[in-house]
């Protein structure tokens, strides 16, 4: 991420200056094109079009930086090599998770400590220069140790780390994802306790930082833990699309990225090997919004021995394919059916998982699809719904639904209990 990065302040500023400049130039040059000849008319149209396009580009750059749809130029336009179909053996044998940043600014667990767990959040993904390697007191993950002051801070507010995950089976490399370790993770009482994990997935298109910035997941979780509503857990925040700008819909694309295997098997395996977390079903849940909601439900239904439960915030339940996905199913209707959750419930045994689906009675066009999915759920699968009266397909709605969703998840995960807290 350099000076001309898609979300850098310099680039967005430059776009705004160019837009203002074009408007000023139009006003300045106005009198020169005041004639009635067709050539004059064409020149006016050209001037107006140029300023319109530049202003629009500036607005798009600003909005993109604000909402973090695309985090980089390669995410927007692709770089052709982000998801190698073939990787060398050496790459596959390195660490599955590398911590690329531990100093993330004013978030719960960031470096500039907020007054409380609900401190204000950074407006965009911070940039990193490297990781701390100095002598330390606490080993957080292979390659990352915390020093005295940082340990004291982490024990109070936890820690958000930026990570790069390499899939040992799929070869997929996902950079700029995040993991939130709760304060308890660093406290001596919990030194030998393994924590449950919630895998959180973005929508499409999205930068993973959105889960911190807009869904407010670490803050919400910290707040609920502080109020005793839920137990501490590790939150692994991943981009649902493993090959931006392509929308992969967590599908094992024939002859393409094996996104399903990456999210359902590579990521849990990498996290279980790197952090002090529980392994397997009773300790893992998956949550997501929009495309991430579909994927949360799908991963839990396809891998019930990895995930005990799923929360789908405004997800959908059929196998989507459009211009952003390209061919996802190798042209096979049958394979597409297998990725359709309604079809699975009608034609395959129901998996032993619980799924919470959310929607809005007004403002969410997938309401009918959500209710149809819920009607198809049958034992041993369990379906739950959380419907709000009104709310569109946006973070404002999902933030309202999040606390109840986390409490619901908490009831289905094996808690992390410090030995001193255990009943005698």
């Amino acid at each position, binding site marked *: 991420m350099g000076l001309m990065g898609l979300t850098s302040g310099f680039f967005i500023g430059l776009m705004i200056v160019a837009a203002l400049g074009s408007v000023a130039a*139009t*006003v300045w040059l*106005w*009198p020169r094109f005041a*004639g*009635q000849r067709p050539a004059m*008319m064409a020149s*006016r*149209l050209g001037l*107006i079009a140029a300023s*319109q396009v530049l*202003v*629009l580009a500036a607005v798009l750059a600003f909005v993109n930086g604000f909402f973090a749809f695309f985090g980089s130029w390669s995410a927007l336009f692709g770089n052709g090599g982000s998801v*190698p*179909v*073939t990787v060398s*053996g050496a790459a*596959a*044998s390195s660490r599955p998770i590398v911590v690329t940043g531990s100093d993330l600014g004013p978030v719960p667990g960031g470096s500039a400590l907020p007054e409380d767990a609900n401190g204000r959040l950074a407006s965009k993904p911070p940039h990193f220069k490297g990781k701390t390697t100095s002598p330390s007191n606490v080993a957080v993950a292979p390659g990352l140790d915390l020093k005295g002051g940082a340990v004291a801070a982490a024990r109070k507010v936890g820690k958000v780390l930026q990570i790069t995950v390499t899939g040992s*089976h*799929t*070869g997929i490399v996902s950079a700029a994802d995040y993991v939130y370790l709760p304060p308890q993770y660093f406290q001596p009482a919990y030194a030998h306790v393994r924590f449950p994990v919630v895998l959180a997935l973005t929508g499409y298109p999205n930068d993973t930082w959105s889960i911190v910035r807009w869904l407010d997941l670490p803050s919400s979780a910290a707040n609920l833990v502080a109020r005793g509503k839920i137990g501490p857990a590790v939150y692994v925040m991943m981009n649902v699309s493993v090959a931006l700008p392509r929308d992969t819909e967590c599908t094992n*694309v*024939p*002859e393409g990225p094996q996104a399903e295997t990456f999210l359902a*098997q590579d990521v849990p395996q990498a996290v279980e090997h790197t952090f002090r977390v529980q*392994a*397997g079903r009773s300790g893992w849940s998956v949550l997501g919004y929009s495309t991430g909601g579909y994927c949360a439900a799908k991963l839990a239904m396809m*891998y*019930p*021995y990895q995930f005990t439960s799923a929360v789908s915030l405004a997800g959908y339940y059929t196998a989507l394919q459009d211009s952003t996905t390209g*061919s996802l199913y*190798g*042209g*096979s209707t049958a*394979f597409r*059916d*297998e990725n359709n959750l309604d079809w699975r419930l009608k034609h*395959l*045994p*129901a998996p032993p998982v619980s799924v919470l689906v959310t929607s809005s009675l*007004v*403002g*969410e066009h997938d309401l009918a699809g959500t209710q149809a999915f*819920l*009607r198809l759920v*049958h*034992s041993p699968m369990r*379906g*739950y*719904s959380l*419907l*709000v009266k*009104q709310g*569109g*397909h946006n973070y404002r*709605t999902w933030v309202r*639904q999040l*606390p*109840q969703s986390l409490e619901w998840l908490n009831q289905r995960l094996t808690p992390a209990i410090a030995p001193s807290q255990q009943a005698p």
Partner: protein
Amino acid sequence: MAVVAVVAAAALAAILWYWPRLAGRGVLPVVARIGALGVLQLSVLGLIFLIVNSSAEFYSSWSDLFGDQSGGGAIVAGQAGTGENAVSSQALAPVTVLAASAVAVPDRPKEAGGQLQTVRLYGQLSGISAAGYVYLPPGYGTRGEAALPVTVVISGDLGSPSNPYSAGALAGAAASQIAAHRLTPMIIVMLPAEVGQHDQGCLNVPGGTQADLFFTQDLPQVIGSAYRATPPATRRWSVVGDSSGGYCALQLAMTSSQTFAVAAVPPGGYTAPPGGAETGGSPQIRAQDDLSWLVKHQPMQPISVLFTGGGTGQPFVTAARPPMHVGQTSLPPGKWQLTRVFDWIGSTLQPPAVRS
């Protein structure tokens, strides 16, 4: 939205038409120009916002956009358990033991051979119920608490006692190796390649048998629920296939190395599943079912594969790179020597991990 579109078009036309009137010098015309451009710009941006919002329904109303909505709803349990499918599939036991017999080892006491069970295994996710055999090593019931590694043998002809690779012969070979301390005590699960209606090489057949699901997800759960078996995550699960189960075994190892870390199969090209795959006319899916394509195009899987028997030139031997390891033994063609296979499995399986 239509109103905004009309406003934008009108603003554009008016600017182009009345351009000369605003071309004068002085403060007023300049302000008028900026105002005209501003109106146009706002209406165009407004139009774009409305189009994007209506296609994706980000905001359903003004109150939604400006945040007047608040509060959640109630979490309601669905009607699970009351539908026509309410009969829980858990009603079927994962393992039903139909018969059991001792396995004899020459020149050894009777209990030194272990036990061979005839079983029916039921996979909850796939819904597949398959008849097979489970071999338990000597002292299974009395040995300490250590969980045992698991080998899954996939063969089309386990049942006929005259077959040199029947369940009885497999159990006997394993028992001899274990008694001679050449093989670590292990649980051996023997299943036919054909767990559904047709032999598809243990693939998931869309709309049909989910054999891959059965072998990779149900089976560890089924075996783990009834026997003292180590979970696949310890990388101590292996899979063995004979001429009828070879594609199945290699396919499982190459696409689900999370479950099967070690495989022993006869040599071959493995370009298509037996019985022909259900590719739905998709060349991509056909490519993925071609295991020699997989070894060239997907990342190397952390597996060890042994090709047993005569014949060379498998694409796997030349293409394999770490972390995938390929070995071969040269046996007379057509011969599938159990002793060598078990020797190799015993030497390849990871030793039990020491957990701190």
